[in-house]
C-alpha cells in the first residue's frame, strides 16, 4: 500500500497543481547523513568547484577549434550530382529525428547557459532557460523511444565498420574513398548509442533532481541526499560526452557533408554520396536501382 502511495505521489509531483504533502526523507535521514557527508557531499563540492566548468569549456572550445580546422584544411565533402536520388529516410523516421533534434537543440545550449550562469548573470534569464531545459527533456522523453526502436537494428556493429575506421570515415582526405560503411556509418552508430543510452541516463538523473525531495527508495544509495548528489555528478559528466558528440553531429550534418541536411529534410540522398560514404549499403541496393 505504501508503495502504491509513494508511486501515486511521485506521479502527482509531475503536476504542480495537485501537489500533496510528501514525507521529507532527506529530513528524516539527517541524523545519519550529516556525519556521512565526507563521502559524496565533498566529492560533489570538489567536482563542481574545480572540474565541471573546465570540462565543459575545454570540450566546447576543443571541438569547435577542431571542426574549424577541418573545415579550413580539408573542407566539406561535395559529391557530383548524378541526378539519381534514393530515398533513405521515410516520413516517420524524419519526424522522429527532428523531434529529437529539436529537443537536443533546446537542451544543449540551455544546459550550457546553466553551467555558465555566472557569465549570464543568473536571475530571470537563466531561470527561463531552466524551464526551456525542462521542455527539452520532455521532448526528448517523447522522441527517444521511437528513435531507439526504429534504428536499433541498423545500429549494430557490422563488418564494414572496420574499414570505415581505417580510412577515417573518408573525412580526412579531399579524395572520394569508399568507406565500407553500411546504412549508417560507425560515427552515426556511436552517436546513436550515446544519444539514446546516455540521453536516457541524463533524463533519469535530471528527473531525480527535478523532484527536489524524491520520496521513494532509490536502489544502491543509502541516503536520499546522496542520490541527488550522485545524480548531479552523473548528469554533468555524461553531459560533457553528449555535448561533444552533439557538436560533431551538428558539424557533420551542417558543414562537413554537403547535402546532408537536405537529405534529412527531403528523405532522399544522391547516388554518388551513397556510393562512397555508405559503400556497403550501396552494394546491397545497387541491383534494385538498375531494374
Amino acid at each position, binding site marked *: 500500500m505504501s508503495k502504491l502511495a509513494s508511486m501515486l505521489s511521485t506521479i502527482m509531483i509531475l503536476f504542480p497543481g495537485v501537489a500533496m504533502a510528501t514525507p*521529507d526523507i532527506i529530513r528524516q535521514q*539527517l541524523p545519519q547523513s550529516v556525519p556521512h557527508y565526507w563521502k559524496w557531499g565533498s566529492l*560533489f*563540492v570538489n567536482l563542481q568547484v574545480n572540474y565541471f566548468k573546465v570540462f565543459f569549456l575545454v570540450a566546447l572550445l576543443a571541438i569547435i577549434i577542431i571542426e574549424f580546422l577541418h573545415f579550413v584544411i580539408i573542407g566539406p565533402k561535395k559529391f557530383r550530382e548524378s541526378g539519381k536520388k534514393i530515398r533513405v529516410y521515410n516520413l516517420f523516421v524524419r519526424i522522429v529525428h527532428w523531434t529529437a533534434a529539436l529537443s537536443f537543440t533546446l537542451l544543449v545550449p540551455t544546459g550550457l547557459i546553466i553551467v555558465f550562469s555566472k557569465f549570464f548573470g543568473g536571475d530571470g534569464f537563466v*531561470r527561463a532557460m531552466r524551464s526551456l531545459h*525542462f521542455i527539452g527533456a520532455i521532448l526528448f522523453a517523447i522522441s527517444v523511444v521511437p528513435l531507439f526502436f526504429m534504428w536499433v537494428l541498423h545500429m549494430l556493429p557490422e563488418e564494414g565498420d572496420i574499414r570505415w575506421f581505417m580510412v577515417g570515415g573518408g573525412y580526412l582526405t579531399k579524395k572520394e574513398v569508399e568507406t565500407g560503411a553500411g546504412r549508417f556509418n560507425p560515427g552515426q552508430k556511436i552517436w546513436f548509442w550515446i544519444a539514446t543510452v546516455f540521453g536516457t541516463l541524463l533524463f533519469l538523473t535530471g528527473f531525480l533532481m527535478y523532484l527536489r525531495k524524491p520520496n521513494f527508495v532509490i536502489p544502491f544509495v543509502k541516503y536520499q541526499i546522496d542520490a*541527488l548528489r550522485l545524480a548531479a555528478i552523473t548528469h554533468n559528466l555524461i553531459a560533457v560526452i553528449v555535448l561533444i558528440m552533439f557538436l560533431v553531429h551538428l558539424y557533420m550534418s551542417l558543414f562537413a557533408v554537403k547535402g546532408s541536411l537536405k537529405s534529412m529534410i527531403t528523405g532522399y540522398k544522391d547516388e554518388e554520396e551513397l556510393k562512397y560514404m555508405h559503400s556497403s549499403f550501396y552494394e546491397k541496393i545497387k541491383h534494385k536501382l538498375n531494374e
Partner: protein
Amino acid sequence: MYKYSRMKFYCDENRCINCHGCEVACQVGNDLPVDIARRKVITFNEGIEGKEYSLSISCMHCTDAPCAQVCPVQCFYIREDGIVLHDKDKCIGCGYCLYACPFGAPQFPKDGAFGTRGVMDKCTMCAGGPAPTFSEKEKRLYGQNRIAEGKVPLCAAMCSTNALIVGDAEHVSQIIRERRMAHGHGVLDETPYGWDIAYPNE
C-alpha cells in the same frame, strides 16, 4: 576579522525537549510557505531508551561554506561576522547548494514554471539579505532582520529551555563550558554536533 568574531548556533542536546517551537517561530515570524522549513528539529536514536535526544538544526553558517563554493551564479556572500547570506534575485534555483550542504539547509519552494524548483530559501540567522535593511522587499524575500534591530534570532529567542543559543562563538563556547561545569562533566569533551563539519579549521 579575528578568530572569535564568528556567529554560531549551538543546540544543547541535554536541554532540547523536541517541542518544535523554534521551527514554528521561524516559519510564522518570517512568513514562510508551508513546505519550507529553515529550521528542523530532528531526533537521534529514536526509540532507544537512554540514548534518544533531539537537536534543532538549520544552516550552520559554515566557514568556507560549501554552498557558496558550488553556486554557479555566485549569489552567496559571507558577512564579516560569519553569517552566510544569498541573493534571491540572482539565484536560479539549480539546487546545487542543497547537494553541497551537509545539513540539508537550503529549501526550495515549488513555484517555478512546470513545478520546477523556485529560488532557494534558507536560514539567514534573522539577518535579512542584500536588499536594503528594513525594506519591504527584504522582509518579503528574506524575513525579519532582527540582527540589525539588535535582537536575537527568532528561534533562539523563543527557546523555552534555552537549549538553542546563538551568538559570538566565544560567548557561546563560554555558556557551553559553564553548563558542563555545573553538571559536573568537566570540560567539553566532544565537539557539538556538526561543528566539525561546519567549522573544520577553527
